């Protein structure tokens, strides 16, 4: 049932909020040991919230997410609930405050289901790089990945038979990728549209909280609740309601170099067929710089920022700790070496190097200037078309046995399609365009800064076309 209809039914008493919560708790309890979409789930916590919402309804108070079950990516702080961002280094950490997005959804009557599995701090494309919890499995084929890093968010959104929406997060494609692999809808907003207060940072100039649902409309409702300027996040932006505008003869651009770089013809055909079925005017456009340099610029910037963000994890104030012995360097190094997984260590090392005296200008600063060039390329092409549309991922969900064989660089190259929009902080949405041998193919729609509502409107039209 769509979230908006569900809220009406809860409000009118057609659906009991407690009985519905019991139903979804039963579903998670029976399936999570098989699929691992949640790395922290407590049925009592969920049912206690449902009872509170029931009292709220009896008191005549409503809410845009009244009684709606919402899963939360592990990197978003929920007061009193162990939040580890998929990392052992945050074992036992229970935030003493709510992230702004959590405060907002609680105010609208949402029920928080638990924390969803992810790559450690968002460091991955397949949700296999974690040191807390288990690898989430794709509900369509358990031998395959849900995608990453918001793997648990997408996996559960696809699996559940209940009304539900997911709070996810993207730095370089961590919403679009798993949504594509699991066949669900997603929205990654313009950088700053949603407050990052209470989000465990991966890379500050790239991180964005977004949403997933079984449909674009479901994801949109959650995003509209979460958006808005926040005094606790100075990078957050003022925004208007995300009500979908009527689009007047939109023109969609098909990026030539990106399509050329994708080797799977069937994926391209499925995406192009979906676009043509909606009857929009499409024209080929050229984005050579973003296609060629996007991945390198993104990873350099992301790793440099990640290495500073992860410096705060030292086993003293929260999370993993040890016996206080030796000097402070020995102690911090000991805790960090035990708490971080391989991918976190690789990124911290590369990022630290790129910021070191003598190398900073040649690496970090150069990447930041390349980023300007890539944003300028997008802005220039947006004078010709309203949106870009292309496959969200160059492959369908891979098998875990295939992922094991990838080198880190081969792994990073999988983000070819998702990274440019994230590097530029531009809004994008994904829908399921169809299936390749029973595996979902995601279609990504991207628009200019702050054109979030238009992007969503366009994605919704594509979603409705047959």
């Amino acid at each position: 049932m769509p979230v908006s209809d569900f809220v009406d039914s809860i409000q009118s008493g057609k659906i009991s909020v407690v009985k519905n919560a019991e139903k979804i708790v039963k579903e998670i309890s029976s399936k999570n040991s098989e699929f691992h979409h949640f790395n922290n789930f407590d049925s009592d916590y969920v049912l206690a919230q449902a009872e509170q919402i029931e009292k709220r309804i009896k008191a005549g108070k409503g809410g845009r997410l009244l009684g709606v079950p919402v899963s939360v990516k592990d990197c978003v702080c929920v007061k009193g609930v162990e939040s580890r961002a998929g990392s052992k280094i945050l074992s036992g950490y229970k935030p003493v405050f709510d992230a702004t997005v959590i405060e907002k959804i609680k105010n609208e009557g949402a029920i928080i289901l638990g924390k969803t599995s992810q790559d450690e701090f968002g460091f991955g494309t397949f949700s296999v790089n974690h040191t807390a919890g288990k690898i989430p499995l794709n509900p369509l084929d358990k031998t395959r990945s849900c995608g990453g890093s918001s793997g648990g968010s997408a996996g559960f959104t696809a699996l559940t038979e209940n009304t539900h929406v997911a709070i996810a997060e993207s730095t370089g494609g961590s919403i679009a990728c798993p949504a594509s692999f699991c066949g669900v809808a997603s929205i990654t907003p313009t950088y700053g549209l949603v407050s990052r207060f209470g989000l465990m940072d991966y890379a500050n100039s790239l991180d964005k909280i977004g949403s997933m649902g079984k449909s674009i409309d479901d994801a949109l409702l959650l995003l509209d609740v979460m958006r808005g300027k926040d005094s606790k996040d100075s990078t957050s932006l003022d925004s208007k309601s995300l009500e979908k505008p009527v689009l007047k003869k939109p023109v969609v651009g098909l990026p030539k170099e990106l399509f050329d770089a994708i080797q799977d013809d069937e994926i391209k055909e499925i995406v192009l067929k979906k676009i043509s079925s909606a009857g929009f005017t499409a024209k080929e456009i050229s984005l050579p710089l973003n296609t060629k340099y996007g991945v390198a610029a993104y990873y350099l910037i992301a790793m440099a920022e990640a290495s500073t963000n992860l410096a705060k994890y030292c086993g003293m104030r929260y999370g993993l700790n040890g016996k206080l012995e030796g000097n402070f360097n020995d102690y911090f190094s000991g805790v960090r070496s035990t708490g971080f997984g391989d991918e976190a260590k690789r990124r911290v090392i590369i990022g630290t190097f790129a910021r070191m005296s003598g190398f900073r200008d040649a690496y970090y600063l150069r990447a930041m200037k390349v980023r300007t060039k890539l944003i300028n390329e997008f802005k220039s092409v947006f004078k010709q078309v309203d949106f870009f549309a292309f496959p969200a991922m160059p492959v369908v969900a891979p098998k875990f046995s295939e992922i094991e064989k990838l080198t880190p660089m081969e792994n990073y190259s999988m983000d070819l399609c998702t990274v440019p929009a994230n590097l530029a902080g531009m809004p994008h949405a994904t829908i399921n365009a169809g299936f390749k041998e029973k595996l979902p193919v995601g279609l990504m729609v991207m628009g200019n800064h702050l054109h979030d509502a238009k992007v969503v409107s366009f994605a919704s039209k594509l979603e409705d076309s047959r």
Partner: protein
Amino acid sequence: MPKVVVDKDLLVKVAGNARLNLTDGEIKKFLPQLKDVFESFSALDEVDINSLEPSFQPIKLENVFREDVVEKCISNEDALANTPHKKDGYFKGPKVI
């Protein structure tokens, strides 16, 4: 980009700066992987960046100011709630000297 020789000494030095102890197994595994990644970064040298400003943020941001007044913040008890290492209302850390 300056030509960087990614060898064991550099890897151990950078890891040390980042407060990470690497095992011999990790050094052996990471060395070729890091070489591969740095090689891919060098592609950025082809891009003409003359007269471009760096984009530290993807979207133009304005400075945000507020009055310099003390606002409500978390309590001392809450700040210390997540660690066993505390004494007399302070965090207790390892020896500095």
